[in-house]
């Protein structure tokens, strides 16, 4: 599993700051494969698409 903000393995270091930042950011990396996702932010939400693992929304 990977941090969806910084893309590093979740077991690699402390991701507390990433989690805090993610409150005001969409994910950028797929948590399953670490691919950079194509992210679209709109006024009320976001979609993040991984070529392998599909779309997340928030």
């Amino acid at each position, binding site marked *: 599993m990977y941090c969806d*903000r910084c893309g590093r393995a979740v077991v690699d270091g402390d991701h507390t700051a990433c989690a805090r930042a993610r409150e*005001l950011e*969409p994910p950028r990396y797929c948590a399953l494969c670490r691919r*950079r*996702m194509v*992210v*679209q*932010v*709109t*006024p009320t939400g976001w979609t993040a698409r991984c070529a392998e693992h599909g779309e997340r929304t928030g």
Partner: protein
Amino acid sequence: MADILAVARTQVLEQGIGLGQDQALDCLRLPDERVDDLLDLAHEVRLRWCGEEVEVEGIVSLKTGGCPEDCHFCSQSGVFDSPVRSAWLDIPSLVTAAQQTAATGATEFCIVAAVRGPDARLMAQVREGVRAIQEAVDINVACSLGLLTQEQVDELAGIGVHRYNHNLETARSYFDRVVTTHTFDERRETCEMVRQAGMQLCCGGIVGMGESLEQRAEFAVQLAELDPDEVPLNFLNPRPGTPFGELHPMGAVDALRTVATFRLVMPRTILRFAGGREITLGDLAERGVRGGVNAVIVGNYLTTLGRPADEDVRMLADLRMPIKALARNL
């Protein structure tokens, strides 16, 4: 030496004459214990010269990432190792975003593209998008598409874009520390063409990028020289992978001092809270709205998230500040 707030009360509040650069610097140097007085005066100035209404706007990215420019604050530059990938928004999604924005009570919807300037493909997408929004949504459409040619300025004015955003970003003396792929004067030229074409000019920038207080005062005055209809004031939100990614966000009191000072330099402009206010000000954003600001971006930004729009609308209601209604020139 006369106290700067006493001077500003006479010059700005009573006479409507914005502060000059040295006076702005005096405000930016006021000690923390005088910041409340500064904010109170900025609020009085805003009420006197702009009225009590607050303008609400939403923004969306039509074309995200992959920009050839090297604006050091921007995660959408293709020059840096940023996690932001290129994306295009389709027209139906653009219209939906405009509808969601209008539902908040907003009167402005700004279409933004991360480009040096628009190419033929982007201009075609903008033409189609503006027309689709105008047919479906009762909202003013603004655009932010980078540097423009005269032909593009004329075309945007012709299709009914009523406001164009192009920021100076920072002071002339600091600009080459922020951007090296185009010049301050190129930005200024686009702003001047926009004004001459009859579109409203939205021109602001970002503070907290390492500029000195002197440069911040210089920036405020250089904005005022353009006489913009709107000044969006962003606070640096350091983005991973960008040259400014390791800078610390500006302190809240400094941010408030800056807001109030910009108001005293530009008593009549629409001064908008834009990106970075959540991480810089947190709950103190409300103090900014009682300290010179008379416009907000609601909802999310281009690549980062903002407060939910209903929280800002509730804040304005609690402050008894009416949201500006849509007014069209017939």
